[in-house]
């Protein structure tokens, strides 16, 4: 088990994060003073009821959104000091994503979906690497299929291949089994953890499934925009 000593050695660090939005009933505080560090290679899950602020936190950690106060440091990059393009560049080099709704591009085949981040990074070996990664998730034979021709589990496997194909230092997963039946969800989680271990990536997982959350080194419990408590677990190596 790894424990971050400070944000200097952390893969990801959140410092006093606050997110407020203006709504019809006045200003609403969605995140309120959230701080934590994640060590390199550590797996952390964020759990909480709907509306607890999990997805908002994930968006801030990945630099998809900017906090109202506080800062996020991702792999030594202070995201608050970067503009949107700067944050995009950090994501291109260090970050992978797996989403609840897969977010595959419907007009692209499975292979092309996996190639996309490599192409955005200007890699010449995009095709070869994407094929290898699709093989690794067991979809080498389905590379020419479009998302509409794939089942939910297959779609998520393509999304996982897309996330790992750039060998990210940090992987963000937002309810990766939320749209899947239980059996398929379990397979997907096995695959996710296995690849994460192989790539020695830092994993930040947002879920409302406590059982899944407890497979991570640490569980952050959120309620009403704050981290209520933290659980530490021995990493489940049985998988």
């Amino acid at each position, binding site marked *: 088990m790894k424990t971050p000593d400070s944000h200097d050695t952390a893969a990801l660090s959140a410092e006093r994060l606050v997110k407020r939005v203006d709504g019809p009933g006045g200003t609403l505080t969605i995140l309120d003073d959230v701080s934590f560090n994640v060590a390199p290679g550590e797996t952390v899950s964020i759990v909480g009821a709907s509306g607890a602020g999990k*997805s908002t936190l*994930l*968006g801030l950690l*990945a630099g*998809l*959104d900017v906090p109202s106060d506080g800062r996020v440091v991702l792999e030594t990059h202070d995201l608050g000091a970067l503009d*949107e*393009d700067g944050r*995009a*560049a*950090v*994501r*291109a*080099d260090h*970050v992978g*994503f797996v*989403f609840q*709704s897969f*977010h595959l*591009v*419907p*007009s*692209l*085949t499975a292979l*092309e979906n996996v190639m*996309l*981040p490599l*192409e*955005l*990074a*200007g*890699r010449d070996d995009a095709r070869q690497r994407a094929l290898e990664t699709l093989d690794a998730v067991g979809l080498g034979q389905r590379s020419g299929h*479009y998302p*509409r021709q794939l089942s*939910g589990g297959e779609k998520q496997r393509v999304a996982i291949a897309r996330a790992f194909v750039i060998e990210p230092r940090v992987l963000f997963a*937002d309810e990766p089994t939320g749209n899947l039946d239980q059996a398929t969800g379990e397979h997907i989680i096995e695959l996710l953890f296995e690849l994460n271990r192989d790539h020695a990536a830092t994993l930040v997982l947002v879920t409302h499934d406590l059982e899944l959350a407890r497979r991570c080194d640490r569980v952050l419990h959120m309620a009403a925009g704050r981290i209520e408590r933290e659980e530490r677990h021995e990493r489940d190596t049985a998988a």
Partner: protein
Amino acid sequence: MNRRPGAVRLAARLLARDWRSGELLVLTAALVTAVTALTAVGFLTDRVGQAVAERAAESLAADLRLRAGDRLPESHLELAASHGLETARLTSMPSVVFAGETSALSALTAASDGYPLRGNLEVATRLGELGVVTDALPAPGEAWAAPGLLARLGVDSGAEVEIGEARFTLTRVLTLRPDEGFNFVDLAPTLLINDADLAATGLIRPGSRVTWRQLFAGDRADVSRFKAELEPLLDPAERLRDIEDASPQVQAAMDRSGRFLNLASLVSVLLAAIAVAMSARRYALRHRDRVALMKCLGAQQVFVRRVNRVQVLLLALVGGVVGIVLGYFAQLALAWLVRDFIGQSLPPPGIAPVWLGLVTAACILGGFALPDLARMGRTPPLRVLRADVEPPRLRHGLAYLAAIAALVALLTWLVRDIGLAAAVFAGAAVTFALLGVAGWVMVRATRHFRGAGGAGWRFGLANLSRRGAESVAQVVAFGLGIMVLLVLSLVRNDLMDSWQASLPEDAPNRFMINVQQYEVEPIRALLDSRGVTVPPFVPMVRARLTAINDQAIGAMTFEHPEGERWARREANLTWSDRPQDSNTVLEGEFWSPGTTTNEVSVEQEFASELGVGIGDTLAFDIAGEPLQATITSIREVAWDSFQPNFFMVLTPAALAGYPGTWINSVHLPPGAEDATLEVMRQFPSVSVIDLDAILAQVRSVMDRAAFAVQAVFAFTLLAGLAVLWAAVQSTRDARAFESAMLRTLGASRRRVLAGVASEFFAIGLLAGVLATAGATLAGYLLATRVYDLEYRFNLALTLAGPILGMLFVGIAGLLATRRVIGTPPIRVLRAA
């Protein structure tokens, strides 16, 4: 860090993948339709235009003709040579020709090598034989005579004739001269000789009535540059004519068809632009997630923007090229289909439509697709986590400015007439606004009809008002499409009718002049006996204008150069106690029969060039006798009516006592042509001018114009279909989801279908009603303001609008959504 990827490569790959998955089909099809329509019309009108111009040039025997009372200065010819133009010279004068003891007045014409520069001479070996095209001229010592001259001299080819001091052998019958006009100078039949023989006749002397015509021909651009340089050098007695003013009938037909074609291609562009805008909006909506994902995966804003622009450029290029190629073939196919109608092969098209196609594609995409795509490019990456995150709205001004700028640029380029472009643009903007407001009101009003039918009907109408803005957009788009089709049918029919009416089958084809008063009745009797209908003979008195308001012409200066010419040349006057059918009194009042004062009615253009108006007095010298008359009315004359018409008509009381001749125009039906020769034999001093050749020429020009109009009509229809398709496609996703939801909730397929049908039929009906109202107004304005035609209310079209709209939109909508509705709900819901 990895190196950043090339935007062009990625844009091309994404575009290719989108194409493969069918995402770009509607947008590309709309774009290709626009370019195909525009370039096919462009190629075709270019070819037809060239053919029409060629025909018009034939009536001048040149692209440009300079007429002078004296020999031309060498400098003009040098200027023409410096522009690479071909030249030829015609010298003509009235001259008496002797064949033995018989003599007749001829229009002696000496032609230099190269004549005619445009068109062909036709000759026959004997009188009465059919003429064949020749590119030769009479050899020195030879002469070719028109059939009328041979008839008057009573000889045939092979005879010897004397002209001035020279003798010639008549070797051919000159059956057609392309530039045979019917102005009063060329009345006598032609005798064509070689320019080299002119001096030998000894007819060119000081004071002889010689007219020099210098002909020029060459590349269109060279000719217009030469014309621009030549014009300031001309002296007032020299008169330059180009194909635009070659003959009023051809010009009027060209002018009308030109305006119509311009208008129709503008409409095609507008319709296609709407289709592209609708497809681009759908594409942008569907691809926001991809942009968010790309940004989430590390693509920078500037890169995304570049990818978008490259995609638009690539699409424009591909759509442009495909459209141009299709346009070229479509045009070939159309030209082939109507080959019999056209009668002869068209010249090959120029390169201009290719540029037109590419620029159009770029303008349409730049103006109508880029704003939506630009907004799509600004989708925040957070959208991957929260589907409700929308891209920020672009400042409206920017998006609209781009579209307006693109449209105005295109319009101006297409019509090359800023005034017309501004008028069309303002008209289109007002139409859009009116349709928008009317559409909104009507969509709102449908709420009240929900209770009138079954569940399907209620669901359909509920959809209509729920989709508010979208429904209005569709009603406006369909309405505009149908309106254009209606306007086109209205204007097309009106145009055709007016052309047919201006040139009926029984249009006069023989002009008779120089008829003495005592010959009027015998000629009428002769023609009557041959079954020819003879309209009343019109008197004509030759006069010279001597003073205006008691001021002598010689001492006056005229602002208008044409006024100066009119004032100094001999004028033809007539008298009548009522205005002719083809005349409209614009100002003042035409005298009533029996008026005893000296009054004159003047043609409007003539009056303005002369600088005279109601109440002014004109003084004339008629064979030495003075005459004064007061202007009491100003007339407009339909010069293309083929009726004898005059600039100045006087009261019978003023003119009746003066010596004059009579003129008339009659229609000789086929087979009665002999009557002409008989008139010429029995009344040798009467000149009969054959208009058949000119009429055939005008008819051929009108046929071409009519054909071009039909072609444009077909393409505008295609553009209208593209709008329909795009509009149906734009709501396809939403419909698919809704029908899946309804079917999941237990609605039968039939009920869902009934709902969709109600919505489309209602949209079609609303659009049809709007379109009919718009088309009636537009048709009225076009007919009365642009084409100078009388407007007739068209009941059939008024009914056709709503019915057409309902059936067209309803059936097309059902066809387009049938598959969506047929898809198993689970597939739709899972994909969402």
